[in-house]
């Protein structure tokens, strides 16, 4: 018996450790909606570094786009004068400013249509893992951001705040597998729940007798208690109605391009 124990002890202890870790994870899920101490520390520690790197990257991209690229162009086109190069630099820069202006104007227009307070924020980092869809923003509790607040852009719903520290917060995107948004079809008002599927969403619990067409717009229903009613979630990409079963299988293409998320708006007050 002693020999058996000596031989299998590492395996047994390893199993016990793994089980303890699993139990702790299971218990922690009960406090999933709140930011725990370690997560708060990580946000505080990594946030400033991520902001620093983000700014540095913006700086390098700007230098490359507005100066180095033009030096290369000048090398390739020796006939171009210094004045031309400078003008191109200004033009490129103004293009970038114009595009940024356009994005911000869209956000501003959207902000004015909302009857609730909003807070603009910049996306500074993505999720560290390939399996999840979250982003980090440069606003936190000091700016009034708390867990559960909805986050949007002019095109539609982005997600909700799941973790917040004094100066930084993390947003769970609607495309994440653990995200669910109470939604409805804008045309026929059929209700359901939009769940994340990575790049797309699935619209669950729409009864099979409901008439759903590809291209139909899906908006938030306001029923979930997180998102205000009427925000655009996306449009129907495909509909599959099987012979049997209560519900239809509907795929939704998000209205927001999550690969180019730069500025977002946090809705500071929940739905009225």
């Amino acid at each position, binding site marked *: 018996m002693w020999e058996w124990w000596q031989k299998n002890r590492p395996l047994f202890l390893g199993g016990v450790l793994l089980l303890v*870790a699993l139990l702790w994870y299971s*218990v922690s899920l009960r406090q999933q909606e709140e930011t725990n101490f370690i997560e708060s520390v990580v946000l505080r520690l990594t946030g400033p570094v991520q902001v620093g790197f983000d700014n540095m990257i913006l700086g390098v991209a700007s230098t490359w786009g507005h100066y180095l690229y033009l030096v290369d162009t000048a090398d390739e086109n020796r006939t171009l004068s210094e004045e031309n190069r400078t003008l191109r630099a200004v033009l490129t820069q103004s293009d970038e400013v114009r595009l940024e202006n356009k994005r911000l104007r869209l956000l501003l227009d959207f902000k004015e249509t909302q009857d609730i307070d909003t807070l603009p924020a910049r996306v500074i980092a993505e999720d560290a893992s390939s399996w999840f869809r*979250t982003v*980090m923003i440069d606003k936190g509790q000091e700016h009034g951001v708390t867990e559960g607040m909805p986050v949007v852009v002019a095109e539609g719903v982005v997600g909700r705040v799941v*973790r917040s520290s004094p100066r930084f917060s993390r947003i769970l995107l609607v495309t994440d597998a653990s995200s669910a948004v109470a939604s409805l079809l804008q045309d026929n008002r059929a209700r359901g729940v939009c769940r994340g599927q990575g790049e797309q969403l699935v619209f669950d619990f729409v009864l099979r007798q409901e008439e759903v067409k590809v291209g139909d717009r899906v908006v938030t229903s306001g029923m979930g208690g997180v998102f205000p009613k009427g925000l655009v979630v996306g449009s129907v990409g495909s509909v599959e109605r099987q012979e049997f079963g209560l519900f239809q299988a509907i795929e939704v293409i998000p209205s927001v391009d999550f690969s180019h998320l730069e500025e977002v708006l946090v809705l500071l007050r929940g739905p009225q």
Partner: protein
Amino acid sequence: MNRTLIYFALAGIAIILQTVLLPLVLTGDYKPDLLLILVVYLGLHEGPWRGGSLVYLMGWFYDGVAGAFPGLHGFVLLGIFLAVRAIVTRVNTESSPLLLLLVLAGTILDSFLTAFALDFFSHAARIWPQMAWHLPVQLLLNFIAALILLRITVWLQRTFMPRKKLPGLRKLDSRYES
């Protein structure tokens, strides 16, 4: 203590790379899991208690920047670490192909444990179909990242610390491999 700090610094660098720098150069939502590579390395060269507690703590830190499930990565990374520890006495821990192979196996185990923990314990939608779809790309990315890191580490050791012994990297240099 110094080694512990170095491991945490490496984990910090991995997190910054995965959250800020790599998304700029890699399209889609794919990124190599550098922390997983570090955990496999720790499994090969650190003892069960010291390495296990380090890995578990790293998992909790990882939760601060990945997903929304506290304790998930602690469980997953500890599972990978213990799996590597279970075979460590039967293999040549200083073989570079083994490290690459274990990174691949670790990636599969990572997705399996994550899917298990999410599908059985949380309210998340079924994540395993997504994971199965993304797994081949993730395997390729992790393999390439491990290969590059191995080359860089060996080169750094040879250039800057030729007399210094790095655990597990003494013989990874091709000059010592038969």
